[in-house]
């Protein structure tokens, strides 16, 4: 690749697409179906989902930038293990930060913060994008995919928390009078399988609005 004579602007059309595409057409969760496990596990409460999304986003952006910076130094044969070391180090940092500042949430997320290492989205982006692109574009790609992941997580958590425990961010939303009329919280929504249903409905709506996403 030869250096382009004219400097590309920071937010060129191509760079903007790096952020907007993962939100819709190449969404890591609903279209590529990556990172589903954590989407099932940490979405009972919205606050957990938000913290989780931010953690994944941080790891994704930093990991992308670091790998992109090292992309010409990493030998192809051992690139996976190098990427793993980088991601693992980042995850440990994120875990320590969470423990220091939001201990309660960190306790609820428990093992799932550690499991960010195995989140397919991260390895996927490192392999597919950061290894072949410059740091700034990689950072944007990380940001886009992080947001794409977070949006789905928060939407799933919104429905699960609202229907499952009648709360949002821990505040009671459904008025007491509903319960007096016989309304009950939906216990299924507190169980992981319900996330599959909600993600499935999300995919359904997304694909019916955008038929070109439907694969044969």
């Amino acid at each position, binding site marked *: 690749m030869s250096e382009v004579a004219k400097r590309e602007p920071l937010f060129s059309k191509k760079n903007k697409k790096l952020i907007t595409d993962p939100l819709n057409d190449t969404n890591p969760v609903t279209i590529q179906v990556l990172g589903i496990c954590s989407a099932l596990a940490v979405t009972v409460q919205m606050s957990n989902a938000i913290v989780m999304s931010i953690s994944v986003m941080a790891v994704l952006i930093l990991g992308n930038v670091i790998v992109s910076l090292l992309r010409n130094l990493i030998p192809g044969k051992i690139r996976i293990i190098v990427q793993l070391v980088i991601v693992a180090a980042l995850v440990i940092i994120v875990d320590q930060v969470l423990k220091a500042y939001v201990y309660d949430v960190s306790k609820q997320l428990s093992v799932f913060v550690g499991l960010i290492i195995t989140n397919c989205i991260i390895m996927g982006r490192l392999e597919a994008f950061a290894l072949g692109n410059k740091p700034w574009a990689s950072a944007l790609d990380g940001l886009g995919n992080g947001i794409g992941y977070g949006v789905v997580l928060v939407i799933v958590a919104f429905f699960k928390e609202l229907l499952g425990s009648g709360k949002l961010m821990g505040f009671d939303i459904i008025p007491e009078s509903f319960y007096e009329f*016989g*309304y*009950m919280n*939906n*216990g*299924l*929504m507190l*169980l992981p399988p319900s996330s599959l*249903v909600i993600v*499935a*409905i999300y995919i*359904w709506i997304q694909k019916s609005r955008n038929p070109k996403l439907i694969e044969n």
Partner: protein
Amino acid sequence: MKFLRKTFDNAHAALNKSEKTKKYFPLVDAIDTLIFTPNHTTQGGSHVRDAIDLKRTMMLVIIALIPALLFGMYNIGLQHFYAQGIEPAFFDAFLHGALRILPIIVVSYGAGLGVEFIFAIKNGHTVHEGFLVSGMLIPLIMPIDTPLWMVAVGTVFAVVIGKEVFGGTGMNIMNIALTARAFLFFAYPTQLSGNKVWISGFKEMQDNGQVVDAVSGATPLGDLAAVGIAQEKAASLMELASSAVAEKAAVMTEKASALYAEADLLLAKVPTLEQSLLGFYTGSVGESSTIAILIGLALLLQTGIASWKVVVSFFAGGLVMALTFNAVGGNGYLELPALNQLFLGGFMFGMAFMITDPVTAAQTSTGKYIYGFLGGFLAILIRVVNPAYPEGVMLAILIANVFAPLIDHMVVSANIKRRLKRVKTA
């Protein structure tokens, strides 16, 4: 008849007048074809010639459900009055039951057909007949005190997620009625299981102190699960007592014998074989009377709608598991005579109307035996081993549904392998 025909023809004509109303054609068509055999004939090559169409098939299943429904109405009323220590007249009991069950049927059909109509109009096809049977099955497998809004929520969930997303009638992987029940079972466990939902109006009667002491409101399967738990606890206490010091041992033995006595009391309440054949005990609306269910099953087998292979192997699967438990023994639930075990709870209802659903069953002949056996086997296994799921039949049939395509695939590929061998050696 002529008047009806004319009304429908007029309605069709009125709809066809403008483009805007044309899309509501499925609405009229659905009711029309429900009453009249459709007049149109197949265009192009037809492969199957049969006097009976899908709607007629569905109607036959509904007719087969009627004995269980009528008995359910009577039994619900009967249990309601028995709980208060009253011996009701036949008509009083029947009327009470009918008045409690009819709203559930109306809500189930209303919610389910509402969804069907929406999808039919949106996708521009005629309304599929599939829900006719599901709409009747759902009320029959609910506890009588299920709130109506829950019935609606469960039905809508089952029709949309269980059926429409897979492509509508005939495409569903899992039984619609059971999907609705399983959804409600996990979503609102307090309303779909436990001791307080099986007798109509039990909670209010209990609050008003009208319930006689002998009635706990539990189903026989609930009682049996409690027997198992109590006896196992007592047995472990006795074991502890044998190695404890004398004073402590005495206390433990006393506790254990109290538990045994409690279990015996519950065991005495479990219906005998005769009683479970007749079905005068608590349970979901349509599940209790084995005789009423068998009448329906006979009709389904006679007309060929239900496959006898599935029915027989389902029964055999349950029998094998129950006999195995009998041989192992250990507590009152495990030692319950095998036939008693099968005639209690939803096993017979599942055998007649759920496992036989041709859409979700295995299609190959050998596959049907495996599929039915798996369902029956799991039903008794789940029911007995996990006291939290007394209705193991529901979960077992859903699991069997999921495995049905795999079973078919195995059967077909085994067949291909077998015949290929023949070619190669020749």
